[in-house]
């Protein structure tokens, strides 16, 4: 296989990997935020006078739920734009061959 084919192969798989890295965590956080918001509303309905307190704690937990999604998205971006390290083996082999 020539060089262009190999690079295209790696890039294609990298794009799929990046799509999974960016898309799947948002699935998790969407479900997480949904459950969180639902519990917040339930607690608020029981005791409306705790509104400020509950909202502050809800936002804290929201930030925590966000965490690993944000990390995965950042890794996806780094892979997509920060120079794909998976191409190094191919470029090194190309340099050796030429």
């Amino acid at each position, binding site marked *: 296989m020539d060089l262009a084919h190999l690079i295209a192969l790696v890039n294609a798989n990298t794009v799929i990997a990046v799509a999974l890295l960016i898309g799947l965590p948002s699935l998790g956080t969407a479900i997480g935020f949904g459950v969180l918001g639902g519990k917040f509303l339930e607690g608020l309905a029981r005791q409306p006078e705790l509104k400020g307190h509950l909202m502050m704690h809800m*936002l*804290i937990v*929201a*930030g*925590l739920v*966000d*965490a*690993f*999604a*944000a*990390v*995965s*998205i*950042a890794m996806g*971006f780094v892979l997509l*734009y*920060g*120079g794909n390290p998976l191409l190094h083996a191919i470029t090194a082999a190309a340099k050796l061959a030429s």
Partner: protein
Amino acid sequence: MASGPLSSGEYVQHHLHHLNFNLKTLSFHGGPPFWDLHLDTFIVSWVLGLLFLGFFHHAARKAVSGAPGKLQNFVELAIETIDGLVKESFHYENRLIAPLSLTIFIWVFLMNFMDLIPVDLVPWSLSFLGVKYFRLVPTADPYLTFSLSITVFLMVIYYNFKSKGFVKLGKEVLTHPFGIWLFPVNILFRLLEEVVRPLSLSLRLFGNLFAGEMVFIMIALLPWYGQALLGPVWTIFHVLIIVLQAFIFMMLTIVYLSMAHESH
């Protein structure tokens, strides 16, 4: 500046470069990457830190007990809020915690706030001085977030030893949570927990801020109608993220330090 218009990939890549100063070759090029100092992160974080300290110190010096001015009001508000928070969550004797939380919150918030400045403005104006790359947001640099979280990690270790002593700490590590006969498992869990905390603390802040910056860069690639539509939406959301992430970093620091003091 580049000759001719950059492709979108090149534009994004250009925005991902730090202003590197290598400490081994003491120059702006070459050298092993381990010794790279991100000069842009370093400068911006120092400037913001000194700004915050100077601001608050000035307000403290000029404090009057009669009719306080606006600056003094704001500083007192910040200090009282954080003092209240610390009193709620931290039940031990330690005079360092409240000033530490104030510093973490305000400093991280100021560094995050740099993300709201238009993404091309500062690098473009600095390019006239010959500076090729400049990333304005220090907290979008993992070097900085890891330095913050490693500092907190070292403090947690120090306070663990200081407030519990070797014997009590040893007992706690060996017997939590499974009892003395499963002590290898206890040690393993404890080590894992202690290592994951600074990792998650720093990566949470880095991930949120880096993703925010990337979305701003990609909005900058859109035509003018796309920018006018998506720009304000993301900016508003990002204002929430900025405050929230600084607040969470501070709360988690307080909680971890409180767990370092407690004894069952």
